């Protein structure tokens, strides 16, 4: 059925072109039926893209190797889940996923808001359609997923390291994030184009932005976890351009999420918010471009592909047009209020914006520097890990501290006395923690110590906020402490959900600091069966080497007995898998997690000699599991913040009623 798939994509292209043209005309001329028709075209585009996607999934599941795409990314013996995940494993399929999610989100966002923000929606439709046109064009003309060939007997198979549950979830989540950021972008641009720079675009897109931001964050954590356990080089983040490609839009989106609170409450930072949302979306496109075009030297590099120049061109057009529209509407964005004091909550949010932006730009510079230096000097210079680590500390540590200080600083102007009062307890906690940590030996790494101290400061502020709020609710007449706690969160979802997310970041910071600044490494230890080695308090005794024929690979494992302080703790196996079909060898690391101490004993069997001698590389990573726990807390906090709030809904409905516009339909 590949012709059906290709035809469906052609239909999509036609529909989004229509939505673009008709939508823009309808918005400009104020034609109701034409606007409705353009909206329907966007919805129809989703359905026809869905048909194309269904064709591809069917072809994958039926092992239809007459499709080049299916043959390149699957094989007969591949388990079904991984066969389906091959949908987004290659370039053409991932573009199709982008388009599917894009049209889906567009249709939904437009439908939900068509009544109470109708004058915005008329402009949202053409903006969405413009982005969709680009992807549809690529799929039809440049990167066709439905190319056919005489069918080979079996396909090339999926890279074994991708046959892993984390790799099932990681790309779709990232794509939900990237594409999700299109929604606030489209609404922002629509607000500018229509001249409707009131709050409605913010209110309409708040949950979309949160969802996209959460998906992007979780997607990155899953990718990091996959790199940690599956690729097994001893770390979870390498500052590789493709990793940075997802981090940059996430940082910009973080700044945007916080900055819009200031616009909602004080009407300030309007121009900032426009710039941030345009930046976040452009960085999403850039991230997709980096991952898929092979332009930057990266271990994720693909062959130089044909879509690179197209992507670059589209990003240029997007940035250019958005900034032009922003400049045109600048007079509308002047805020009625201004910053009164550098010591105020507004100022704290401004610093937050600046630090996040600085970190984001630093990473961007690091990513494009090899390209620039090659263009200018003819020689591409790569900035190493130390560059990123330095700037992560310089900008990240103040950000961490700010996370604790921001919620405690008063609006408009904070007096020195009030600052002293609110910061007294957290500062004490942090100082005590710092001293205790130094006594425990954390002084061996200054950045690590500073991170821990700042983290305790922020942790203390969060705990105090929850405690104070619960006590206040109990005083208001709640039945029990638990009741007071739940009703506190229930009535202030955004604030306390936000605090939970901040707690997740604190855990993340502690985990990252512990596992990098305070890790112990035994880089290169040669052991014969029977020999032992010592690292970070553990003793490892290499017992024997085994070989076992698994489902699709020959599994070679070195078995070690683990002891600490003479007490046996169990055993560990590390080694390699040799995959016959894919002709590849993969590293299988052995990890022993100590859940009490949250640390990992991480063993890599680097080289296995035929006589049984093995070269081991061993890491002891303290607190590394806090990173994964932080991911769970992060999701919890986001869910709390995202949860529908009946009271907020009522307020918006009554406001719409007072103006005379129909209320939101959901």
């Amino acid at each position: 059925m590949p012709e059906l798939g290709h035809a469906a994509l052609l239909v999509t292209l036609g529909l989004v072109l229509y939505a673009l043209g008709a939508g823009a005309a309808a918005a400009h001329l104020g034609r109701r039926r034409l606007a409705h028709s353009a909206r329907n075209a966007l919805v129809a585009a989703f359905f026809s893209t869905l048909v194309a996607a269904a064709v591809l999934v069917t072809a994958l599941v039926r092992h239809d190797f007459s499709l080049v795409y299916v043959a390149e990314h699957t094989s007969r013996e591949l388990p079904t889940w991984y066969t389906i995940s091959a949908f987004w494993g290659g370039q053409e399929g991932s573009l199709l996923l982008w388009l599917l999610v894009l049209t889906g989100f567009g249709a939904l966002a437009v439908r939900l808001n068509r009544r109470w923000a109708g004058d915005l929606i008329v402009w949202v439709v053409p903006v969405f359609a413009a982005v969709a046109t680009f992807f549809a064009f690529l799929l039809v003309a440049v990167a066709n997923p439905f190319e056919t060939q005489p069918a080979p007997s079996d396909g090339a198979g999926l890279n074994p390291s991708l046959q892993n549950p984390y790799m099932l979830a990681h790309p779709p989540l990232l794509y939900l994030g990237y594409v999700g950021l299109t929604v606030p972008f489209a609404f922002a641009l629509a607000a500018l184009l229509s001249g409707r720079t009131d709050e409605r675009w913010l209110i309409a897109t708040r949950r979309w932005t949160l969802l996209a931001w959460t998906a992007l964050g979780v997607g990155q954590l899953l990718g990091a976890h996959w790199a940690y356990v599956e690729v097994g080089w001893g770390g979870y983040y390498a500052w590789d351009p493709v990793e940075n490609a997802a981090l940059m839009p996430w940082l910009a989106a973080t700044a945007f999420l916080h900055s819009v609170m200031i616009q909602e409450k004080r009407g300030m930072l309007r121009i900032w918010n426009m710039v941030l949302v345009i930046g976040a979306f452009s960085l999403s496109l850039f991230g997709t471009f980096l991952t898929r075009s092979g332009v930057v030297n990266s271990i994720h590099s693909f062959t130089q592909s044909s879509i690179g120049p197209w992507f670059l061109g589209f990003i240029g057009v997007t940035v250019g047009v958005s900034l032009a529209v922003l400049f045109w509407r600048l007079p509308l964005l002047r805020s009625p209020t201004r910053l009164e004091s550098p010591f105020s909550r507004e100022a704290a949010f401004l610093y937050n914006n600046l630090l996040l932006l600085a970190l984001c730009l630093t990473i961007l510079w690091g990513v494009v520097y090899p390209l620039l230096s090659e263009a200018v000097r003819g020689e591409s210079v790569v900035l190493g890990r130390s560059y990123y680590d330095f700037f992560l500390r310089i900008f990240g540590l103040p950000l961490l501290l700010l996370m604790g200080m921001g919620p405690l600083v008063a609006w408009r102007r904070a007096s020195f006395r009030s600052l002293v009062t609110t910061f007294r307890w957290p500062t004490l906690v942090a100082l005590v923690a710092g001293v205790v940590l130094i006594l425990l030996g954390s002084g061996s790494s200054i950045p690590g110590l500073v991170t821990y101290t700042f983290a305790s400061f922020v942790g203390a502020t969060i705990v105090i906020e929850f405690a104070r709020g619960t006590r206040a609710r109990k005083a208001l007449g709640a039945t029990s402490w638990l009741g007071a706690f739940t009703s506190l969160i229930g009535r202030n979802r955004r604030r306390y959900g936000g605090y939970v997310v901040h707690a997740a970041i604190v855990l993340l910071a502690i985990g990252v600091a512990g596992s990098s600044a305070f890790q112990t490494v035994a880089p290169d230890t040669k052991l014969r069966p029977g020999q032992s080695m010592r690292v970070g308090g553990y003793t490892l005794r290499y017992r024997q080497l085994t070989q076992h024929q698994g489902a699709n690979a020959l599994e070679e494992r070195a078995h070690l007995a683990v002891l600490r302080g003479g007490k046996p703790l169990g055993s560990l196996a590390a080694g390699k898998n040799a995959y016959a079909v894919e002709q590849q060898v993969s590293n299988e690391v052995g990890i022993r997690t100590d859940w009490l101490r949250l640390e990992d004993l991480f063993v890599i069997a680097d080289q296995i000699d035929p006589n049984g001698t093995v070269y081991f590389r061993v890491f002891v990573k303290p607190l590394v599991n806090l990173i994964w726990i932080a991911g769970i807390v992060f999701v919890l906090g986001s869910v709390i913040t995202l949860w529908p709030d009946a009271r907020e809904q009522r307020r918006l409905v009554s406001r719409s009623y007072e103006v005379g516009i129909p209320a939101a339909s959901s």
Partner: protein
Amino acid sequence: MTAAALVLAALLAAGCVVLVALPFLREPDPESDDLGELDEAERQRLELLEARDRALTALKELEFDHRTGTVSDEDYRQLVGPLRRDAATALQALERERGEAAADEDVRKGRPTRERTLSG
């Protein structure tokens, strides 16, 4: 397979065309094709409403912060004044706008202008 694909593709295209043409098919001769956007007065009212809600929310937040102890009694006394003033200004502006809108409505409909009560 190609014949089936062709038929399905044709069905898809036809369905999409119908969906796109639906607004015109349903209303071939409408009374008004105008988008019904907010006019100047409605936009002003929306802005005033947003200003009012912003001021009221700021007051509520201050109360909350004071009750939980984040803001001391002294600071509360200092801060609550300007916020109350902002809220009052916003409410007054809204009242005034409502009054003017009602008066305009009267003029348009040819009714005798009603008495305007002064607020506050």
